[in-house]
């Protein structure tokens, strides 16, 4: 599709927008179905000066209604009208005070990648988005002549780079169909057919591409090489060194970057990786982007100035002012500048929840989370929330959800549960219970149901250590199945 055709779609979308009563300036909800029509709708809203709320296309309907009510949306506009023509949520004009600064110039409202029943709303101002897309376009050559792969779902903050920065600066965007996103052969064809120059994706996607490229070689065909790609970005999760080592062969003409960020602040750290000289201590998240201030805080909240470890706290030129509809007085991850920080100008910081290590050269390395957050197939999941949802079931007396690292999915969740005596609940009904309240990635891969009390520590907390050994799930996980091959 050309920019001219896109402009016509935007004009159509603007006409639809004009038929709505938008005098109140409430944000417009556009379910993030990945189509050119959705992109045109978003552009039309931005042109009209209306904020766009992008709920995940896969969000359960009930959750979406609650989310949009909290965002103050009066209108839901879907690209495929028939699919989304559902009534707008009962309008609840901003019941809670909007977050400080989350005022009239909000352009995008994203949702946190979802662990709780109703995701948090992250408003991003037009200025924040503008600063980010300008940085990204200059850094990764996203302008005319560029062809940028969009792998992530349209509601992810990653799209500020691969979709919105690219369109703002005149490059071409190639949308990966979410239903085919784990089909390595399909991904390979897409990158090849469009001569993609920039690939930003979670490590899993790069691994799928490498697997598919090698499978072609093993099948006696010429090895597939993605020679058009100039910039390879991995983000959203830990990049396994073994996977990274395979990438230079797959993308022979590319530079490689580890990009670190989160929905609330967008990207904050970047590290260009020299694939010929992989650092022995893992791949760093690197150094702050221009304009980013970063502090490492130890467990007591004191600034770690030299080498050491602690929670990463950042302030970026691209960040949100705070969650929409959140009580500004309630404790949250948005905090004032930490005392004792290095000289800087930022006044509002964001606690990432990520534990990092700073080496003697000043580079940061990701070590883990300081809470129960894990990534399952690129989606942030809080295992404590999953436990809570399971405990809400009337026949479940105890619940522990364990996250076990998995080479493909990042983590897989395993639920160990005690049901009440005489309960009729089984794992199928429990899955349904979870599916009604949680995003799909948060539904545990396996469930173990018992009627015995779960082991507890002396302080009465579930004893996670002694819950193992876990059942080895005979589930997708360790290998990527190849078509035409027995996988049992």
């Amino acid at each position, binding site marked *: 599709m050309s920019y001219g055709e896109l402009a016509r779609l935007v004009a159509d979308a603007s006409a639809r927008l004009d038929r709505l009563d938008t005098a109140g300036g409430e944000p417009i909800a556009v379910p993030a179905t990945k189509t050119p029509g959705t992109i045109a709708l978003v552009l039309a809203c931005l042109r009209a000066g209306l904020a766009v709320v992008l709920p995940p296309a896969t969000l359960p309907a009930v959750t979406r209604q609650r989310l949009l009510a909290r965002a103050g949306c009066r209108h839901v506009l879907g690209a495929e009208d028939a699919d989304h023509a559902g009534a707008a949520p009962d309008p609840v004009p901003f019941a809670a005070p909007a977050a400080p600064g989350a005022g009239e110039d909000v352009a995008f409202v994203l949702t946190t990648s979802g662990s709780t029943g109703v995701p948090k709303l992250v408003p991003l101002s037009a200025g924040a988005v503008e600063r980010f897309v300008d940085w990204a376009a200059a850094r990764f050559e996203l302008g005319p002549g560029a062809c940028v792969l969009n792998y992530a779902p349209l509601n992810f903050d990653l799209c500020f780079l691969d979709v919105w920065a690219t369109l703002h600066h005149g490059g071409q965007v190639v949308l990966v169909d979410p239903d085919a996103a784990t089909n390595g052969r399909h991904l390979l064809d897409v990158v090849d057919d469009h001569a993609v120059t920039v690939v930003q994706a979670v490590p899993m996607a790069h691994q799928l591409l490498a697997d598919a490229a090698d499978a072609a070689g093993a099948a006696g065909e010429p090895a597939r090489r993605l020679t058009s790609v100039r910039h390879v970005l991995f983000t959203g999760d830990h990049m396994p060194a073994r996977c990274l080592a395979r990438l230079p062969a797959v993308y022979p003409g590319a530079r490689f970057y580890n990009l670190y960020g989160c929905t609330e602040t967008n990207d904050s750290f970047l590290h260009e990786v020299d694939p010929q000289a992989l650092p022995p201590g893992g791949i760093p998240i690197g150094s702050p982007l221009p304009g980013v201030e970063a502090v490492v805080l130890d467990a007591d909240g004191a600034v770690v100035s030299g080498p050491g470890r602690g929670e990463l706290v950042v302030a970026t030129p691209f960040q949100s002012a705070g969650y929409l509809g959140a009580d500004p007085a309630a404790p949250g991850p948005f905090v004032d500048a930490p005392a004792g920080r290095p000289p800087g100008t930022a006044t509002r910081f964001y606690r990432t929840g990520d534990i990092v290590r700073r080496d003697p050269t000043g580079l940061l390395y990701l070590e883990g989370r300081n809470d129960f957050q894990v990534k399952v197939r690129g989606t942030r999941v809080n295992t404590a929330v999953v436990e809570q949802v399971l405990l809400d079931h009337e026949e479940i007396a105890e619940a522990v959800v364990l996250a076990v690292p998995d080479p493909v999915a990042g983590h897989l969740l395993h639920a160990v549960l005690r049901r009440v005596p005489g309960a009729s609940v089984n794992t199928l009904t429990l899955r*349904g219970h979870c599916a009604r309240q949680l995003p799909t990635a948060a539904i545990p891969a396996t469930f173990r149901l018992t009627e015995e009390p779960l082991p507890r520590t002396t302080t009465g907390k579930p004893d996670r250590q002694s819950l193992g050994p876990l059942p080895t799930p005979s589930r997708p996980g360790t290998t990527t199945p190849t078509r035409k*091959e027995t996988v049992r």
Partner: protein
Amino acid sequence: MNNETLIKSYLIEEFLPEVSAGDLATDYDLLTNGVVDSLGLLKIIAWIETEFAVTVDDAALDPDNFRSVDAIGSFVARASVPVEAG
């Protein structure tokens, strides 16, 4: 074994080891309920190709074809219609 029984026993062995065949309704939504993710879909497709000696072309990769025991059953029935060799 008829196809439905075969499909059920495969799904149980592969994805739901703790479930008995009688409990798995043939219209149980395997995707929405998180039994099968997108990698799981590829496994199912690989199994169908091997088990039923059919070729699943990319056009048939619509997840709805594999959403439940019933859906997989009808998909296999459609795909198994003999075509003339050529």
